[in-house]
């Protein structure tokens, strides 16, 4: 684990876990708190899921943990999540759903 003068950094890549689902995000934050990390780094991370990032974003804000080195592939998702929490609105695609009273099978 890398240390800087002021920050103790938890590198997600080193955890060797897939970055998906809320419980894995909670698991990551638990590690950060137990081991007194104040920064979580996305360095070398290629992807993460919406639930994971949403939960990590909320918990890291509550616990004053900084998220750093957000890769380009993840930043659009983080921007939507930030916007979603600031406006208290969930952004989801609108799709046209048709309904039929016929029986499929």
């Amino acid at each position, binding site marked *: 684990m890398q240390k800087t003068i002021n920050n103790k950094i938890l590198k997600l890549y080193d955890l060797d*876990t*897939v*970055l*998906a*689902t*809320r*419980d*894995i995000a909670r*698991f990551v934050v638990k590690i950060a708190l137990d081991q007194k990390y104040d920064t979580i780094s996305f360095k070398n991370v*290629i*992807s*993460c*899921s*919406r*639930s*994971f990032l949403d939960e990590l974003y909320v918990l890291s804000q509550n616990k004053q943990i900084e998220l750093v080195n957000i890769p380009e*592939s*993840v930043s*659009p*998702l983080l921007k*939507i999540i930030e916007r979603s929490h600031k406006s*208290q*609105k*969930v*952004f*989801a*695609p*609108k*799709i*046209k*759903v*048709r*309904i*039929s*009273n*016929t*029986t*499929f*099978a």
Partner: protein
Amino acid sequence: MESLIGPAKQLIGFLNDAHGVVDLSAMRFAYPIQLLPAAALITEKSLEYKMPSSSSCAGYLQYFHFPKGFTQFKSVSSSYIPIYKFHGINGTEAEISNKSDILRNLMRIMLRDLGSPTGAVNALELVVDEIVSNIGEHSGAKYGWINAQYYPKKKYLDVCILDRGKSITGRYKEAGKIFLNDLESLKSALEGESSKPEKIRGSGLPTFVKMVTRGFEGEIVVISGNAIAFGNKNSGPLVQNISAKWDGTIVAFRIPSNQNPIDYALYIE
């Protein structure tokens, strides 16, 4: 690409016949959309069953640990995920690690067999995450089930993920939102009506459907209670009744290989 409609219709037939001893003797081939519901039903309802007469089909089922499935990640495969049961919510550290390994294996299949187009891993992770998270957060089921198979000659990936927890209607009811039937509740879920008490939109099913059908140009099937939704790249999902009932939710999708780059940001809001 062959359609998922045929296997989905066969699944409905199976569900209608699955009483007493479940007879699989005539089964010669099973897609995940057929195999996984059969495994979950037989295991969770402790039903007796007859294995397929076809030795190759029976061997395939045994290799995938039918019907009980694996509860611990076994080994990495480049083309399939056998039948796995993963914990629903509040799992132990070992269970979380296990779920992580299963999902990572799915990403590996994606990378290797679907040609790894730019952005596909991010997109698939979003898709699978929406379904797996829904099971953990909303279904109340102790376990979720997953099975995936890449077909090299047919050049598509089939994935099925399901639970035997609360149906979508049941989840809405718990949040104080009453729907007349499974048809109406499934339509609302697909349109983004959240099953949470707060007045917010749900992102799960709309994101999943748009990403699979538009991003991957694949097909989706969602079954909950006695309603089914089918969608593909040509049209939005059509919701219909089915003659059987599934206690919980089944989500299955088929993705062709040779994908173009995918910008997931186009499909999440």
